[in-house]
């Protein structure tokens, strides 16, 4: 399965890119996060992050589908 991962703020700094296509047999967002940990060293863990699937917040347990756009959302600081 292939998905697009988008990175923001400190995760973008750590990944060195704003977005990448990732292929693998991760079923859920949580599994995708573990998979990404094999290629990047992130300054934040799952307890600090929210998940967005196709531009909506969703649980880490969300089952992903081909072509999904996933983002792991660091603590926000708008307002």
């Amino acid at each position, binding site marked *: 399965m292939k998905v697009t991962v*988008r990175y*923001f*703020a*400190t995760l*973008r*700094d750590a990944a060195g890119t704003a977005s990448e296509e990732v292929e693998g047999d991760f079923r859920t967002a949580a599994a995708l996060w573990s998979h990404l940990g094999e290629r990047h060293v992130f*300054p*934040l863990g799952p307890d*600090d992050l929210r998940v*967005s699937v196709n*531009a*909506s*917040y969703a649980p880490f347990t969300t089952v992903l589908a081909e072509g999904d756009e996933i*983002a792991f*959302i*660091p*603590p*926000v*600081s*708008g*307002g």
Partner: protein
Amino acid sequence: MFLLQTTPLPSPAELLPAADHACGGIVAFEGRVRDHHQGRGVTALHYEAYEALALGEGQRILDEARARFVPVRVAAAHRHGTLAPGEAAVVVVAASAHRQEAFAACRWIIDEIKDRLPLWKREHYDDGSCAWVGCGCQGRGEAP
């Protein structure tokens, strides 16, 4: 109406024009870029946004406010990109026949925006350095 834009924000009166004369109380919140943070001089501020999620989530926050605080009219706008001290980063307006509802809705919306809207603030300081603010990884986000 929820706006997300890189250009200067509308004033509260422009954001939520008086549609009629039925609303007696109007409460507006404006959050402006400060010129200092934790003792350091701030020269500019950059908001990075996940635009698609921010637009959807901003609209959801307003819809939820309308359901929670009845009767109320609400609108909000958030800016992203680079802002100078004194510029408005966020504007929220709530109007209701009852001032209690207008205050409660305005307060609730800005609290939700700060909690949920996917925007990240990077401050640039007068010593040339910059840092992500409230990034959950104190010090790690620092960069020259």
